[in-house]
């Protein structure tokens, strides 16, 4: 079905508003129930309690409440969503939206009311660790259970009303309001980064004015941030869009120049920024870089060649251990103490061989068997490093410690004590990895990978040696991952088997899928967003309060991405076409028959060509 979601308010003829009497009660109950359940669940995970310490706006709003409060709004908005079909007019928004929104919101709020009452009267602390008076006090704003019960009904209703009411506004206003809210939340999430950067330029007073000492924006700061965001969105959006369109329509040398400009600009920013920020932020950047490197490697395996490798961490581990054994003076059996760059050659060779060794038998399998087997290999490699049997070589659970730094032609030594240099080192390798992936994607080999991904049988019939091609993807991915491992060993200064759990593979997989399989830009963005904001398996991100929940969120995100947007955040054009082929065909058909505008809203019809991606 070509059901493009649009909200009323775009420039088409409308049917008269729906009447309140016609409310879709089943949908309302279902949506409200789900929202209430989600709210209770989130509360019981103690997310609000933990996140209450993180304020968005000083002494007004904490991040915990942003999450709970957003749910009725979303529910209220979803209720009155209309599926737009070609040739069927959309109802104008009216009282229906408001009443429905308020009702759904109240239902959602009722979930928390119920929770407050339950916590007051029953004690379920035994299985549910967060079933505590602390949670109740937080939810009832320290004013007793009755107040808590009522206030959530009220908050829910108000939220739902807002959500429904958003549909009454014109598209432009709605976008502006949403942008304002998002910017404020974003500004508070990115606090560490922004403060560090602004102070680095020498504008501490500005930072102090915007951000409160105990975290969060000041009230005035939030106001100004929202105002700036609002004004730019309200007046600037058309221009942004036009500029993007213009770049997209550029062709030939002009486009190349535009792209080169963008790349140079990004490179310049990446080189300058670390100089301005402190070591904590640099540490964060270095972690993100390591994961970008890993994700780019996995992207070749999963994204381009379509091989679901769940044991990717094995290559990370092998790279780390090889570098550690060859460079550290303390490694148990052999310690040649090579310089890091010499060791790197061995790392590449050894990981390549391991990739071949694992890949050769595995690659003939298809799909799910392959996933399980790679998972098995990933675990076996970790168990081997951990075992007493090989501890003479790799130190067993003690790992290898005291790994030296990277010497660069005797000029400086890069080690974990200086995260800025580590970041630059990672940056160099990221650049190499990006270049390699970019060239490979457009090479004969890259096209072969994609053919194999789309249909192995057909690819084989086209004369592609599928086994060799897939094996190559495996090995190239392995080598890219081993770079990351080698730098990791060097950065941390020690390697332990516990750093290479299957968990790491999963996190990298989430990064690749969230960003967009097969899309270089997407993968980088995914790594920056997930690892930077939420944090890696062991590395803290910007939202340190989240560390308990990040894996939960990763799991939910993986499922949700698969359901809602399997092509990822910034999809590669070709991949999204594969996934939405039917819609594409139907859209094309409609365009031929009916002059339909291709306004795709922000509801996520990913059918249109994604911005910033290369033409295919």
């Amino acid at each position: 079905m070509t059901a493009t979601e649009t909200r009323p308010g775009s420039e088409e003829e409308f049917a008269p508003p729906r009447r309140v009497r016609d409310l879709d009660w089943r949908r309302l109950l279902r949506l409200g129930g789900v929202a209430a359940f989600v709210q209770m669940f989130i509360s019981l995970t103690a997310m609000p309690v933990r996140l209450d310490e993180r304020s968005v706006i000083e002494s007004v709003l904490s991040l915990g409440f942003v999450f709970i409060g957003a749910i009725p709004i979303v529910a209220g908005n979803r209720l009155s969503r209309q599926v737009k079909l070609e040739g069927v007019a959309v109802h104008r928004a009216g009282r229906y939206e408001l009443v429905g929104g308020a009702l759904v919101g109240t239902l959602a709020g009722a979930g928390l009311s119920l929770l407050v009452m339950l916590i007051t009267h029953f004690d379920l602390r035994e299985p549910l660790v967060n079933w505590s008076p602390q949670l109740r006090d937080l939810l009832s704003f320290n004013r007793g259970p009755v107040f808590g019960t009522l206030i959530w009904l009220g908050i829910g209703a108000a939220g739902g009303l807002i959500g429904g009411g958003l549909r009454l506004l014109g598209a432009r206003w709605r976008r502006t309001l949403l942008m304002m809210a998002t910017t404020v939340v974003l500004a508070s999430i990115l606090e560490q980064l922004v403060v560090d950067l602004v102070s680095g330029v020498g504008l501490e007073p500005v930072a102090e004015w915007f951000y409160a000492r105990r975290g969060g924006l000041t009230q005035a700061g939030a106001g100004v941030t929202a105002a700036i965001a609002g004004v730019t969105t309200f007046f600037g959006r058309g221009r942004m869009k036009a500029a993007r369109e213009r770049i997209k329509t550029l062709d030939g040398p002009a486009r190349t120049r535009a792209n080169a400009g963008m790349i140079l600009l990004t490179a310049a920013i990446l080189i300058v920024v670390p100089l301005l920020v402190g070591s904590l932020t640099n540490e964060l950047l270095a972690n993100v870089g390591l994961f970008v490197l890993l994700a780019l490697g996995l992207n070749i395996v999963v994204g381009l060649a379509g091989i679901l490798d769940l044991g990717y961490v094995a290559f990370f581990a092998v790279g780390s251990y090889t570098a550690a054994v060859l460079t550290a003076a303390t490694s148990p059996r052999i310690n040649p103490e090579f310089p890091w760059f010499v060791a790197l050659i061995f790392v590449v060779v050894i990981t390549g061989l391991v990739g071949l060794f694992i890949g050769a038998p595995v690659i003939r399998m298809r799909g799910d068997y392959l996933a399980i087997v790679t998972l098995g290999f990933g675990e076996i490699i970790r168990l081997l490093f951990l075992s007493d049997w090989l501890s003479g070589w790799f130190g067993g659970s003690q790992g290898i410690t005291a790994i030296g730094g990277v010497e660069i032609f005797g000029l400086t030594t890069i080690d974990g004590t200086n995260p800025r240099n580590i970041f630059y080192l990672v940056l160099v390798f990221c650049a190499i990895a990006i270049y390699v992936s970019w060239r490979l994607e457009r090479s004969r080999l890259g096209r072969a990978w994609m053919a194999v991904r789309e249909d192995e049988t057909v690819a084989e019939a086209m004369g592609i040696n599928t086994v060799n091609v897939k094996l190559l993807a495996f090995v190239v991915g392995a080598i890219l991952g081993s770079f990351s491992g080698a730098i990791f060993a060097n950065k941390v200064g020690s390697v332990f088997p516990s750093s290479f759990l299957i968990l790491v593979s999963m996190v990298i997989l989430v990064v690749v899928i969230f960003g967009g399989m097969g899309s270089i830009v997407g993968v980088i963005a995914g790594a920056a967003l997930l690892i930077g904001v939420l944090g890696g398996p062991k590395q803290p991100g910007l939202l340190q309060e989240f560390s308990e929940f990040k894996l939960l969120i990763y799991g939910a995100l993986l499922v949700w991405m698969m359901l809602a947007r399997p092509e990822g955040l910034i999809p590669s054009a070709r991949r999204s076409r594969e996934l939405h082929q039917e819609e594409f065909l139907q859209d094309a058909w409609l365009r031929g028959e009916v002059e339909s505008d291709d306004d795709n809203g922000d509801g996520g019809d990913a059918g249109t060509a994604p911005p910033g991606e290369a033409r295919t």
Partner: protein
Amino acid sequence: MVYGVLGFINFAHGEVFMMGAMTGMITSNKLADAGLWDSNFIGSLALVMFGSILVSMFLAVVMERLAYRPLRGAPRLIPLITSIGVSFFIQNMSIVLFGPASKSYPRRPDWLRDKHTFLEIEGARIMVIVAAAVSMIALWYLVERTKVGKAMRAVAEDSEIAALMGIDVNKTIVKVFAVGGAFAGMAGILWGVLFGSVIHNTGFLPGIKAFSAAVVGGIGNLGGAMVGGLFIGIAESVGPLLVLEPLGVSGVSQLRDAVAFAMLIAVLLLRPSGIFGERLRAEDRT
């Protein structure tokens, strides 16, 4: 079973098992507090089992409804990745809801801990073996002798044709998940009673091993699955000692899981249709 019908590995199956064990832990501890666990063990065990089977079934059905049904007909990699996500989610949900510590079951009564019979087997182990046998028979009856089972097999064979024959594919798949969930819940209880504790990642290895057992025995072949389970179990407990010790490998017990994985890999490589499985056409498994 689920694999046979759906054609993809449900990584989250182990997590259903874990949640079953968790539920069992909660209810049995409550019953133990009330004193029922000691005074009327059989009755309370039945109650606990019933509760956790219910929860596991519910979880499995919800999982199917929310995560897998919308993806039916999507490219094959996608449900697979989704199931990884679901498994990840449930594991971590258990951490944040119940806390990360390992939780213990109440003490089993003495007659389950004593050694019985001439084989010197713990009572609990006998119970597990009996339960496994009973559930095997029940499952066999369900799949081979009932109408529902017939529908399940038909969907496994070819869901489109099954739909044409008037079988409600969605309902059948829900039933498959429910049955799978029920068995996982039951296994969870047995695990809890036998090993006495449960933790959030309890489900991971058993899930993988269950899959290996199913593959070793031949997918969709119930008797094979049972023999496969036995085979994997024996190989992993005896294999390290028999094979690795003579090779001069030290600390073999640490490599137990590595051996289990190696076995799985070997089986998948050498005989993907399993020991007893009928030869599958190549296109069936793609």
